[in-house]
């Protein structure tokens, strides 16, 4: 298939997700699409898959105008979309998933299971996989699920395959197999669009590239003409040096938290590090690096399968979250809506909750005390709220997050674990959160921050650990920090392909 997307524009309200982007993919070409999170890759691909309708711009497929795509039209044209998040039904068997909405039926109603199972076996053989088509999807691990997702796209005739980070959970052998298949399809004239953050993969399988940044087209060309360094620079742009926040140097030599060989099967392996009093230690990496699970293990929200955590030299008992809190560890979880906010409760109750569970004595709530505490914290963190008894959902995202931070203040916490603390809040509020983090370390506490946004790591981190596939890949000191190098290690470019 020869695809041409010309001058595509797409906005969501005031947010311009894609601005004047053009993309050309030739017949039998594997095309790498590069860009950071939020660069507009997914929006563009959703336009091609017919999920979203572009505001303006033209789509030409084999020279014909197909500017008004719908998911059905797109599928009929032979465009297959392998999504990053798994779209499988856990409660159905593998072959039932493969043929979902494309079931082979006899006599109009009767499902021809034998035939579907036979074809499933065939596709798995082609992929060099040993997956039982009659197994339940629920019983497969993440990498198998991803492979089933890929198999589903290959099962039917297709002319263009879109793969959105398909290899995050795959092993090297599985990735090699996948690449073999992509090259085989190429011989049959099938084109692919391959989205990935992993440079070695892109360079090993793709012919041409297109780079997007902030929703705009940056460059396009042959992979043969560039190296990984150049690709990373195009990806992050040149104007990436942001201002740092003024910060007193408050790091002491005293080690507060030590993590020794911590592992959590299937997520991360043998992670060791330590945090000093007054230090901001940042963790970063790409999707599937095990960062989020590491944060949860430190707080006792997930049980590690090996290793030890020591707080002031004493083993931290992570079997109960409450005990971890009482030992002096606080956590601002990622995904505020899902993990931090008690949506039916008032602003005040949301703020008081951790105090109630860990420090407050007695059964009764003393109204005066609660109000006084609230007012004190509100002023400290500058929460903009009309009435403390209003529901928490009436606040803006930034103010909600300040409430979540304030929960942990005044509880004599030594270590603050912040998992994506500025997710989904606006720039002004982000700045206030950074100042809060500074205030935390200035008062002699320590911060372990998990973030996928380099600019904020650059602003506030004293040290930055880059993770890759569940392992520590590199540690940067503050004065070595730059985005190009961080991306280099986050994508595993220092390791062998895949």
């Amino acid at each position, binding site marked *: 298939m020869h695809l041409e997307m010309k001058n595509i524009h797409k906005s969501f309200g005031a947010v311009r997700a894609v601005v004047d982007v053009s993309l050309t993919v030739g017949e039998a070409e594997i095309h790498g699409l590069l860009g950071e999170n939020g660069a507009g890759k997914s929006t563009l691909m959703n336009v091609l898959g017919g999920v979203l309708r572009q505001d303006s711009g033209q789509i030409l497929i084999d020279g014909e105008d197909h500017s008004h795509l719908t998911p059905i039209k797109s599928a009929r044209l032979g465009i297959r979309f392998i999504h990053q998040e798994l779209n499988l039904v856990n409660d159905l068997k593998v072959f039932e998933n493969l043929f979902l909405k494309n079931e082979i039926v006899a006599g109009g109603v009767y499902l021809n299971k034998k035939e579907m199972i036979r074809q499933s076996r065939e596709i798995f053989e082609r992929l060099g996989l040993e997956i039982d088509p009659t197994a339940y999807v629920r019983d497969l691990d993440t990498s198998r699920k991803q492979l089933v997702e890929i198999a589903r796209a290959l099962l039917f005739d297709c002319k263009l395959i879109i793969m959105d980070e398909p290899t995050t959970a795959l092993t090297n052998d599985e990735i090699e197999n996948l690449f073999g298949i992509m090259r085989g399809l190429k011989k049959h004239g099938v084109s692919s669009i391959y989205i990935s953050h992993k440079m070695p993969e892109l360079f090993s399988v793709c012919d041409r590239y297109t780079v997007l940044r902030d929703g705009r087209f940056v460059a396009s060309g042959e992979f043969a003409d560039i190296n990984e360094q150049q690709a990373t620079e195009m990806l992050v742009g040149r104007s990436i040096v942001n201002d740092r926040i003024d910060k007193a140097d408050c790091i002491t030599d005293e080690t507060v938290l030590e993590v020794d060989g911590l592992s959590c099967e299937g997520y991360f392996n043998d992670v060791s590090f330590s945090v000093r009093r007054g230090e901001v230690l940042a963790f970063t990496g790409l999707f599937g690096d095990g960062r989020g699970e590491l944060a949860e293990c430190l707080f006792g929200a997930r049980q590690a399968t090996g290793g030890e955590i020591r707080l002031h030299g004493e083993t931290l008992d992570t079997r109960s979250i*409450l005990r971890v809190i009482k030992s002096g560890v606080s956590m601002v979880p990622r995904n505020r809506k899902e993990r931090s906010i008690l949506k*039916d*409760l008032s602003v005040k109750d949301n703020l008081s909750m951790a105090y*109630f569970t860990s420090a407050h004595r007695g*059964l009764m*709530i003393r109204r005066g005390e609660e109000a006084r505490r609230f007012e004190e914290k509100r002023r400290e963190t500058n929460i903009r709220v009309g009435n403390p008894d209003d529901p928490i959902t009436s606040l803006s995202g930034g103010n909600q997050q300040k409430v979540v931070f304030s929960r942990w203040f005044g509880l004599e916490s030594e270590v603050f674990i912040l998992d994506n603390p500025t997710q989904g809040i606006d720039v002004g509020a982000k700045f206030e959160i950074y100042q809060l983090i500074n205030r935390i370390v200035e008062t002699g506490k320590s911060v372990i921050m998990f973030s996928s946004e380099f600019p904020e790591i650059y602003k506030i981190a004293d040290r930055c650990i880059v993770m890759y596939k569940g392992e520590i890949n590199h540690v940067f000191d503050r004065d070595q920090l730059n985005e190009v190098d961080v991306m280099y290690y986050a994508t595993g470019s220092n390791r062998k392909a895949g």
Partner: protein
Amino acid sequence: MKNPLAGVDWKRELKNLFVNHNYIFSLILLLIVGRIASDQFITIASLSNLVKSSVFIGIIALGMTLVIISGNIDLSVGSILALSAALGVVAFNNSESVLQMLLVSSAIGAGLGLINGIFVGKARMASFIVTLATMTAYRSITVQLGQGGPLIAENEAYFASLRPIGYGKIFGIPYLVVIFLALTALMWFVMNKTKFGRYVYAVGSNEKAAKLTGIQVNGVKIAIFTIIGLLTGVAAFLYVTRFGSVDVATAGRMFELDVIAAVAIGGTMMSGGRGTIQGTFFGAVIIYSIDAILSAFQVPAFVNDLIKGLLILGAVLLQKVLDRTRDE
């Protein structure tokens, strides 16, 4: 002259009142309808009668409010009522002591609730299935205990010490009503003034977030099921003071439906996180106003439950609609 109320947005105030306390409007409406049906409907005596007939359902519904706010359900309350009432009668006949009977009924109720709570909290099973299973199990124990027939409180002793509680009045108000009101006040206090109350709302609102602030979610669930068991035990005691006997096969049967309906009509969200004790109090009274009005209109008893069912559907639908306007 400036009107001091000029700044008040009446439309908004009224809307808020209606959104948050719509059960009061429902009750007023029902009372008006009742007045049309019968001149005798709104007298102190008949109002107090309404409350009195809702006592057993109402006391259990106070506990059910906690259960539903926490995002759970308890279908076993009818069976718990029967079993703790039955064992209460046995204890009474042995000792002729009112206090001992009260203690036995309450302890049995709390114990049965605790069993539910352990399955839901510790074993993390769905409360619907757990209490569906214990509903039949508890009932079976009761029927075995009474050998199918009723358990009757010793006649003389009953008239001497129990009946005065079930039928007695103070200043014209039945003891049962006084006890119901007192328990309502107590549970209101628990839900509004204690940390435990906040935890119940937090667990029902967002269990994951509740856990991450250090709330021991499993313990809270166990406590909630124990509390509803205890309240059901108290209701069982009052049930015996009123009726003097327990029919092991039918006592409390289908109570869970009326109890859940009372909580729903009282404005508690079935999905958890939101609800009030005072709402449930009115919800319980409303259920019996419906019964009273239907009989005042001489509606055939067979149609009775149909109309009740429709009204419950209406109440929950109203909640949904109002919830949407709240989010606007």
